[in-house]
């Protein structure tokens, strides 16, 4: 394979990685927001996110018979998933984490693992009653098509993408757009509204924030609501991207998204996005090393296949934690004694 064919191929791999990275980034935000406020790894977030994916699946399934604009269906699916996942996350916080504030750190962490296990089986049972295990997304017509099949139907953006040789499906473009909009809204909420200011205050110092008249419990609930809603969005996007979801499929993306949050600096919102994108690209690159192997002429590289993608994420995590535990954009946290 020569450079002329390799380059566009690599560009596509990287673009594919970025698309994937946006999904991870939105999941990672769910971890990072909760961690920023409570210093708790919400292990249950991966199930909150799968719940969003399941809700999205059900909405698409129900609306499939209805004559309706595809984008409207997507919007309904996203809103429903945000509502359910956000509500679920608030509920989890109320029932499982709030009674444990102030307990040693190990205690809420183990609770989070427990909640995650419970949710997995609850989801499995609920879907199992309909005789389903693997939920296959049926997207509205045209979503899985190439972004621009023929030159005549291409928008200017499509023409540009074609020009540089990027090959995207419509659903990928939608995914990136939805992710960018959610990031913009989140950024607005956190940085421009009163509630965002209060959340940041609680994250920084709960006691002082309380003295200033901020109801820290309400702000923590709000954080869980926002985190859960982001989880819902990412669930739908994940379902769109990968096509199938089941009750246990939260583990892998959950762990990668957590790695992304740590990579960017846990607690930092831009960090989570940066980490997500980086890991998406790394993961896609690991997936194609066999082709790189063909280029280099080495057969050994071909042995590294997709099953090593997960290992890749963990190795990245170990390396970051060893060399820069605060992550790329994180601030160092001086421990007071």
């Amino acid at each position: 394979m020569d450079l002329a064919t390799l380059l566009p191929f690599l560009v596509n791999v990287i673009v594919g990685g970025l698309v994937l990275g946006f999904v991870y980034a939105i999941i990672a935000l769910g971890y990072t927001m909760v961690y920023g406020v409570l210093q708790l790894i919400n292990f249950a977030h991966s199930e909150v996110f799968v719940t969003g994916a399941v809700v999205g699946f059900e909405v698409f399934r129900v609306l499939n018979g209805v004559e309706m604009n595809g984008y409207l269906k997507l919007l309904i699916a996203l809103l429903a998933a945000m509502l359910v996942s956000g509500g679920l996350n608030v509920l989890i916080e109320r029932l499982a984490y709030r009674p444990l504030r102030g307990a040693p750190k190990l205690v809420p962490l183990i609770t989070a693992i427990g909640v995650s296990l419970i949710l997995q089986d609850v989801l499995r049972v609920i879907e199992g009653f309909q005789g389903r295990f693997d939920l296959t997304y049926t997207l509205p017509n045209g979503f899985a098509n190439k972004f621009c099949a023929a030159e005549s139907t291409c928008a200017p953006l499509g023409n540009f993408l074609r020009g540089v040789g990027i090959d995207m499906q419509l659903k990928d473009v939608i995914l990136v757009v939805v992710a960018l909009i959610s990031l913009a809204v989140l950024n607005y909420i956190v940085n421009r509204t009163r509630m965002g200011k209060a959340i940041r205050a609680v994250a920084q110092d709960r006691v002082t924030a309380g003295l200033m008249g901020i109801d820290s419990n309400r702000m923590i609930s709000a954080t869980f609501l926002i985190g859960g809603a982001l989880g819902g969005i990412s669930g739908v996007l994940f379902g769109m991207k990968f096509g199938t979801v089941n009750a246990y499929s939260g583990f892998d993306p959950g762990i990668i998204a957590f790695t992304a949050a740590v990579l960017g600096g846990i607690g930092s919102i831009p960090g989570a996005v940066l980490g997500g994108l980086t890991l998406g690209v790394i993961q896609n690159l690991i997936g194609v090393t066999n082709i790189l192997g063909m280029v280099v002429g080495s057969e050994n590289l071909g042995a590294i296949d997709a099953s090593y993608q997960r290992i890749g994420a963990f190795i990245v995590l170990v390396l970051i934690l060893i060399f820069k535990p605060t992550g790329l954009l994180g601030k160092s946290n001086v421990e007071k004694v």
Partner: protein
Amino acid sequence: MSLPSMFDTNRDGKPDRTILLIAFFLITSAVLLVSHNGPLLEGLGSAGQFLKNPITEAFFVSLFLANILFAYLWKAAPWARALVGVASLLIVLPWAGREDTSLLDLSIQIMIFAALALGLNIVVGLAGLLDLGYVAFFAVGAYTWGIFASPRFAEILRYYGENPGATNAGTLAIGLFLTVVTAASMVYINRLTSRQAPTATSTWSFRLAAFGLVAGLTLAARATIVLMSGQAEGLANGIDPGFFWLFLALSVLAAAIVGVLIGLPVLRLKGDYLAIITLGLGEVIRVLANNLDLYTAGSQGITPIRSANVPWFNSLAGALGFTEDQHYLLFLYVLVLIVVGVILLVNVRLDRSRIGRAWIAIRDDEVAAQAMGVPLVQTKLIAFATGASFAGIMGMIFAAKQTFISPESFNLFQSIGVLSMVILGGMGSFPGVILGAAVVTLLNLRILPGLGEATANLGIPQQVNPGQLQRLIFGIILVAMMLLRPEGLLPNKRRTLELHHEDNQEDDSVDGNAGALGNTGAEVYSAGVAPAKHEDNAGGRK
């Protein structure tokens, strides 16, 4: 400190229950023996049917095992307690197991998990390091024996016989030379740095030597395999079972080494980071087992794995009336019993040793412990390696018992299962952890499947069949224990103080403000209970 003191905690003011204990033991033993005696049950007619029912059976097994718990808990004459414990484990259980092999199997499983839970208890309960990849060490032990005692070994030899590379006796010599030289220089540098402060040069040369050691060992190992490849046909069923005893030691060593290797880079991390990274490394070991097809046969798994060959024990078992195919199970039962006993003993001794107190100090407050001169990394590594070695030896016995291992036996869910045993029983409490292991294993292997079988005809849909709800039940155990009784069923006294000291203090954690102190939230109060803790730290008895 004498050994009986570990059984003799403070029980003043309780009535003496010797007679009750003996009566309970006799009744439950009789019921157990009857309910597992097939021919006898036939004769009993409908009562026999009732006793054979999986739920009643699970109930009777639980009641019988409760004997041992009561012997530990109740105030009774020492001879009665010892008698009940010994007779239950050495006479009644094997006797009932002679009629029903699944009972022996169950007891072995319980003890394997008890040993795992004891190991994890050192890491989580004593040293406070949440390890979510614990089952990886179990896998190391299992594969150490599994590869050598199965046809896999011959496959590996054949492969290297066909692809010898440049390896011959010369390479072996170089490898051994390199190993010896680097090992010697490591020891030398280590001695040097113990007398004077380590410099950058000494640190780097130590690392270089370590690298050389790994290279030397790899070369030597590869050369040995190539030179041995001619033997492949003779080893078609794996190595001689007589090596079982050697491997019992090797699996401990291998798991401990892997524990140190995993521990070295990650033990600088704390709390949640450590949890997630151990989870990750556990998964890495599973993925490796799944992908290194030559060594682990990938997802197909390795089978058949041999067990030790002990003719004298077989003849003894034969004399006791056990049939031929029960011999190896009885042997493993006795072996596991002994190993669990040794592990328990090691645990109790470690808990009261300097290192045990260092672990607890680190768990309670890392910074303070460091300030008091506890070497953090070293102490944590010892905890990791000790926990790992228990898992390693049990992994090997597990492989010998199942005669089959595959990566699926070592997934994250298993790690969480062991964790839930530790938490259910009580972190840091040895009898509690064993109780937790027994309860969870019974739940998994007997009670849930029994309930599933019993409800199969009641029209309950397959999806909510109790046999399928393991995750839900584990999850509920974890959450409920954390919310209601974080100290566990049989709490460790010291741990209880720590988790409930807020109750006695002026408490501002109720309205959610205590955590505002961030990482130090819980520890800040420890000064208040320092005297109480101090007393406990001073040793077992007061």
